[in-house]
């Protein structure tokens, strides 16, 4: 029994826990030829970016925070709205067909999604071909720094909004139908039933998902952004993840980028714990019990 499980456990130890320990490079002047053991320990000096106002770091942090806010406000509620819309349809077969269509983009990789968006909205893409054919001005959308955050946000919605409905649809299906019937008999309109029955029943789930979202709030789509960073430039597109990649893997500043990565991870854990405390304070269950 042990023997069968060992390869899996070993894979987790070697490629998950060993790298977790490897975060010690955040406190080292890591040199690849010296390795983890021989590199010089430098205390917290790699974390200087936190207090010396490194402009590149601040830019990446700023872009990350803006994207987090946009994504939490705009992207996060879309699946709920879509789920309510789907749920309000009577036809079971139609509903299932629509679900099949909406879930599909989730299974495409970011490379494919970015390529599809380019072909649709790029300067030679479908939208602009159509506009040119009808003597309308070309819309520059892809590769424009000012529109980058909007573009990234719409891609996130396109890819995962449909998939996100699964969990809401399942929760909606567990709401006791008799509540709706009783409310309707008492004269509640469809809108009142939505506001007073459906939404309150989904509150706990919504808060749970929001807390989980907070935990990854400093990760705003590494693959998606690195793929599109070239044309729009660092200023508009650099986020913490790409900063770590560009400075560490590309630039070879192992210690500092390791420190930023660790900072990001610790903030994520603290946000989840903090948000969970807050949820408990408001009498919600949160991710884990008290």
């Amino acid at each position: 029994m042990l023997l069968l499980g060992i390869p899996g456990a070993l894979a987790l130890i070697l490629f998950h826990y060993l790298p977790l320990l490897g975060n010690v490079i955040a406190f080292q002047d890591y040199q690849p030829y010296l390795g983890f053991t021989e590199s010089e320990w430098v205390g917290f000096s790699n974390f200087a970016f936190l207090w010396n106002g490194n402009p590149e770091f601040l830019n990446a942090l700023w872009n990350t925070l803006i994207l987090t806010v946009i994504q939490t406000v705009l992207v996060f509620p879309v699946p709920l709205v879509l789920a309510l819309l789907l749920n309000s349809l009577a036809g079971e077969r139609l509903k299932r067909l629509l679900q099949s269509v909406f879930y599909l983009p989730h299974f495409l990789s970011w490379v494919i999604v970015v390529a599809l968006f380019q072909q649709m909205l790029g300067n030679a893409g479908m939208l602009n071909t159509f506009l040119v054919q009808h003597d309308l001005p070309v819309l520059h959308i892809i590769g424009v720094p000012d529109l980058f955050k909007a573009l990234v946000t719409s891609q996130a919605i396109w890819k995962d909004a449909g998939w996100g409905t699964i969990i809401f649809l399942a929760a909606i299906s567990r709401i006791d139908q008799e509540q709706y019937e009783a409310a309707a008999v008492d004269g509640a309109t469809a809108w009142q039933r939505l506001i007073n029955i459906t939404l309150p029943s989904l509150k706990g789930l919504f808060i749970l998902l929001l807390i989980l979202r907070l935990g990854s709030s400093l990760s705003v789509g590494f693959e998606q952004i690195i793929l599109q960073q070239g044309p729009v430039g660092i200023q508009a597109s650099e986020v913490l993840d790409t900063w770590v990649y560009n400075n560490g893997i590309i630039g070879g500043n192992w210690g500092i980028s390791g420190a930023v990565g660790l900072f990001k991870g610790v903030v994520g854990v603290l946000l989840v714990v903090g948000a969970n405390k807050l949820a408990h304070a408001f009498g919600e269950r949160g991710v884990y019990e008290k």
Partner: protein
Amino acid sequence: MTTLEQSTVAKDRVSAPARASGKRPPWMEKPNPVTQAVKFLALVICVALVVIPFWSVIATSIADQTTINAAGGGMVMWPKGVTFSSYAAVLSGGVVTRAVVISVGITVVGTLLSLAATAGLAYWLSRPNALLGKPVLMLVLGAVLFSPGLIPTYLVVKQFNLLDSWWSLILPVLVNAFNVIVMRAFFQELPQELFESAAIDGASSATILFRIVLPLSKAVMAVIGLFYAVAYWNAFFNAMLYIQSTDKWPMALVLRTYVVNQTTIGGDQVSAEVLPPQLSLQMAILVIAIVPILVVYPFLQRHFAKGVMIGAVKG
């Protein structure tokens, strides 16, 4: 276990029993035509947003030069002259053909190894009183909660001399801890008396796994296997990090270079007497990357909601 069962029921038919027939319950008012029209319009727009990109990518990949020229060199919605020359060019040798072979290889080998490792670990953790059961369960749960950063992971892969090796695309992602938890939950649902009687009859735990557990777990193996396969086929991030030589590129890197970054595709990359239009070649590459997903999608779809819900309830 009631929650789990409910979610299983909710798998395909994600609506309440009262409305499963698709009929409006007697207490519900007649739909207002204006709201119906607005809803209908919203859904049509959503469907169009998903379907049109796929459609025009496929249409452009089979369009000939004249159709593309007629579209001003851009994407095509209705190809007038249909030709499969871009597919022939891309698939008869060259960088794309090699990438397809590499990606298929990584997907097949990776999925088999991942399934074996995941099932082994899940089986270990599903047995009551297994040796080291508690600490290993903590190990798996910890891996779900804490993810190591990019830099240390890269350095570990480098330390193991896996850079520029196809193993760097498999070993670091061999076991997905979340999948272990889902599979363990499934194994625990199996009738435990079967194991006990088999053990009394002298079956070793390996025999129990292969002769009893796995034959009873085809559904969960299929789901998890498909999830792994899609992840291996789509893997871009690790390929970008770890694979340096262009002759080892999987599909994702080819896609980035020739479709996203639009590097010119010439006679060195594909083999064709007359080079098809660049756009058709690019779209053919894109379609080749999408098709495997579309092929497994119906199978995935039948099961994934179940997998997601088991994870949500048990995780």
